[in-house]
């Protein structure tokens, strides 16, 4: 909507657009970051106040660590991506801060020390974030080797199946051991595969957009173009069956379908994708007991009152509208609250109010990515930004919807909040890419076009259809 209005405005009044000085928004970003660090530190202190009635002794150290990591990221953005969207980093820091506070809160209840590890992983994440911004100066270099990227992604996905290094946690074989450390290579594979999809689809989209037979008013793709989607579908099913993990397969396939739709502008791909998901789900249901079990738990979470969904719902209900206050609920009663169910723990202690804020943060982050996708001028960038942003929000929806009994539960991490290094680090990489893309989207075009300021860049977008 706003886009159309902007287009209209520029048509009526082009000279005004010309005079606008490109706004980089780095000052805005700094102020928002101060708020983000403030919220994160306050939440951390609040946990101790609520649970133990004292200010944590390491509050200053915590504040320092957070501020340092954030400061480095901000400075690198100033240097390497000065036109980047100023809202992205503050949202990420806030989400990380809330996640850290909740992990710390669960540490207090369970007598563990995950928060320190998580903070360290955040440091690693920021380091990779910086590395991506420094080494990927233009996102278009990512499109050069689509098949290699695809292969790398597949290899990463398969790593946990290898005999020595791969192992299972809670039935899902998605982990590898390297020395004493464990990783979920699937997190990295997801990003690399999105890059590969984008690069591949940009090359092949003309062919894929060709219409085949018309069925029920929808142009179906030609049968011979179905290869790629079937391949990814089979891959997803493979992950599901071999690794016994529903979440990543649904997510990966979903992202691919969305990207193929963006690339070809043919809605039929979406229908086809949904059909394939349905078929795959029903098929998997027959083969893998796991899936039926998930659906049963979803339909009747109280059949096992100690089960995750029941406990999650109890936690959410107990929190009510305003929550119990950090440190004052019983989120430790929810099984694995620190990873998959961290949203339920947050919903309990921050209430509906807090959870709504968190969901809106995620939505805002995704909308910033999608906005970059609209603003970007190259098809690969558009496709990549859309894939990353929509895939990110799809993941948020799958995990939060599962935790709150909107949809059956599937194993996925809550971005930036769940305990776990791989997920946290790779989401920082994802954000680095979004920053890079938004920088490209908002950066004024060097010469030719007079109306190429960031504010009116929308006017340049050419509708293909």
């Amino acid at each position, binding site marked *: 909507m706003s*886009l159309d209005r902007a287009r209209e405005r520029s048509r009526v009044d082009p000279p005004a657009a010309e005079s606008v000085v490109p706004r980089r928004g780095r000052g805005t970003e700094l102020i928002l970051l101060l708020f983000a660090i403030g919220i994160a530190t306050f939440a951390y202190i609040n946990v101790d106040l609520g649970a133990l009635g004292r200010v944590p002794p390491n509050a200053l150290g915590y504040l320092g660590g957070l501020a340092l990591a954030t400061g480095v990221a901000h400075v690198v953005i100033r240097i390497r991506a000065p036109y980047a969207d100023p809202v992205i980093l503050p949202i990420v820091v806030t989400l990380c801060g809330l996640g850290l506070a909740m992990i710390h809160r669960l540490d207090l209840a369970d007598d563990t020390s995950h928060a320190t590890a998580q903070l360290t992983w955040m440091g690693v994440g920021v380091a990779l974030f910086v590395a991506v911004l420094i080494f990927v100066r233009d996102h278009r270099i990512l499109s050069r080797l689509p098949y290699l990227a695809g292969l790398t992604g597949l290899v990463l996905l398969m790593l946990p199946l290898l005999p020595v290094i791969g192992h299972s946690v809670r039935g899902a074989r998605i982990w590898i051991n390297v020395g004493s450390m464990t990783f979920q290579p699937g997190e990295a594979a997801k990003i690399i595969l999105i890059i590969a999809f984008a690069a591949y689809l940009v090359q092949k989209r003309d062919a894929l957009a060709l219409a085949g037979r018309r069925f029920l008013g929808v142009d179906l793709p030609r049968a011979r173009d179905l290869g790629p989607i079937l391949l990814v579908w089979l891959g997803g099913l493979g992950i599901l069956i071999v690794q016994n993990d529903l979440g990543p397969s649904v997510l990966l396939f979903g992202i691919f379908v*969305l990207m193929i739709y963006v690339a070809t502008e043919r809605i039929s791909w979406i229908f086809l994708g949904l059909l394939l998901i349905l078929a795959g789900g029903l098929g998997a249901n027959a083969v893998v007991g796991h899936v039926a079990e998930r659906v049963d738990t979803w339909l009747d979470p109280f059949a096992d009152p100690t089960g995750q969904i029941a406990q999650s*719902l*109890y936690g959410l*209900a107990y929190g009510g509208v305003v929550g119990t*206050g950090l440190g004052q609920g019983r989120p430790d009663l929810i099984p694995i609250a620190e990873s998959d169910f961290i949203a339920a723990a947050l919903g309990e202690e921050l209430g*509906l109010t807090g959870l709504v804020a968190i969901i809106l943060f995620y*939505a805002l982050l995704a909308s910033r990515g999608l906005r970059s996708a609209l603003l970007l001028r190259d098809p690969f960038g558009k496709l990549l930004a*859309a894939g990353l942003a929509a895939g990110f929000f799809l993941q948020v929806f799958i995990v939060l919807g599962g935790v709150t009994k909107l949809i059956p539960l599937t194993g996925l991490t809550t971005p930036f909040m769940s305990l776990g290094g791989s997920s946290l680090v790779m989401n920082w990489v994802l954000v680095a890419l979004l920053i890079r893309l938004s920088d490209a989207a908002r950066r004024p075009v060097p010469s030719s076009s007079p109306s190429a300021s960031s504010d009116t860049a929308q006017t340049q977008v050419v509708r293909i259809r």
Partner: protein
Amino acid sequence: MNSPIRRISAGCLLLCVALLINITYVQAFWADELNARPENRRVLLDEYSRERGPILLADDTPIARSVPDDSEFEFQRQYPQGPMYAPLTGYYSRFYGRTGLERAQNDILSGEDDRLFVRRLIDMATGEEPKGGAVKLTVQPAAQEAAYEGLEGYKGAVVAIDIETGAILAAANRPSYDPNAIATHDFDEQTAAKNDLDSDEDQPALNRAFAQRLPPGSVFKLVTAAAALESGEYEPDSEVPGPAQYDLPLSDKPLGNYFEGACGPGGTTTLIEALRISCNTAFAHIGNELGHDALLDQAERFGFNTQPLTDSDMNAATSVFPDDASEPETAYSAIGQFEVAATPLQIAMVSAAIANDGVLMDPYLIREVRGPDLVSPIEQTEPEELTEAVSSETAEQLTDMMVEVVDDGTGENAQIEGIDVAGKTGTAETGREDEPPYAWFTSFAPADEPRVAVAVVIEEAPDTAREDIGGGALAAPIARDVMEAVLGS
């Protein structure tokens, strides 16, 4: 490519809205139901880890309180006086729930009550642990102790009422039980105590004072006498027939007195005399003369057929005067038999109304509800008139008649030196062969300026010979002790 990107954005927005609607439903609308689910440990743990408010007597002595404890529940509920107040307090048990005031006043004690809402908001803002409010009773420790001591060795109950306000000053029961044993966190001990309580045939958990309905026998003659005086056809010295046996209309079975012979020379007596010696035949005759409707009306004006103590939700039993009765049944009703059944509380209300110039006050047990600071009052009970049971003239006449009973009649055991006591005995047939009767006594004092009304019932007195069981012998001394305890304080 922008059009699909926009559509996808709209799709993301849709997913976002779905998430928001869903959590709003769960956390704002479904929450109460989820919290109420029995297997939801969170609510249980929360309830137990919160400092539950105390139950206090009129002088602020706690009869139930929560003390800090090392267990995962953080607090242990204690009942310092144990059995003496058990039928009032009830127990607060993790596995067996709540009874008595612990149940009836749970919202206040746990801090969940709407009247504590503002306090909860403040606690939420300041991060203070929420605490429950206090419930302060009207019960006076001296009166309760006298009543409980007096019942020793018997199965029975005592109720004492403040005449002017209707406040309940004592409500004692025997046998009783120790609520501490059921409130303990030790599962085995708790189960054993509960099993003992459930299997005891004497029903120690029953609050006899409020909930045990028994035939009132002769104490009901107060109601019949009141109806007679109110009808205008009788005066205290009106002559009434009082033969040795009253020939029931429509029946072959004669109705006799508790004692041998007639109630006066030539089979006639006066109303005042009939009450003094508790003459069955005279009251059976009066009952039939007045008719069932007049008796029903009078009984209802004293509170029969209406549940008392509904404000405090104490599950008090409704005393019964039958809706419908034939003539012989009416004769039996007039002397408190047939289907007439009353709780000790109801009988105390009859005395209290007579003492209060005929005005029946609504009895109440909870004097005040206080906030979690245990000082600031949230709600106070205001004394409330229920009905005018009898005219003040009738009340005066009944008082004089009851004074006669204690001065020189069946209730001599209730005499207090230097104070005029008004009373009435009752010895009610249980309706079962070979079972000793129920011994009743109700009274109030001082007769000229009444302050306290008492009702006592002894259901069983195992150590007393059957012929010695009677209201005057067993129940009157207890009533005297309770009245003395109240008047002495």
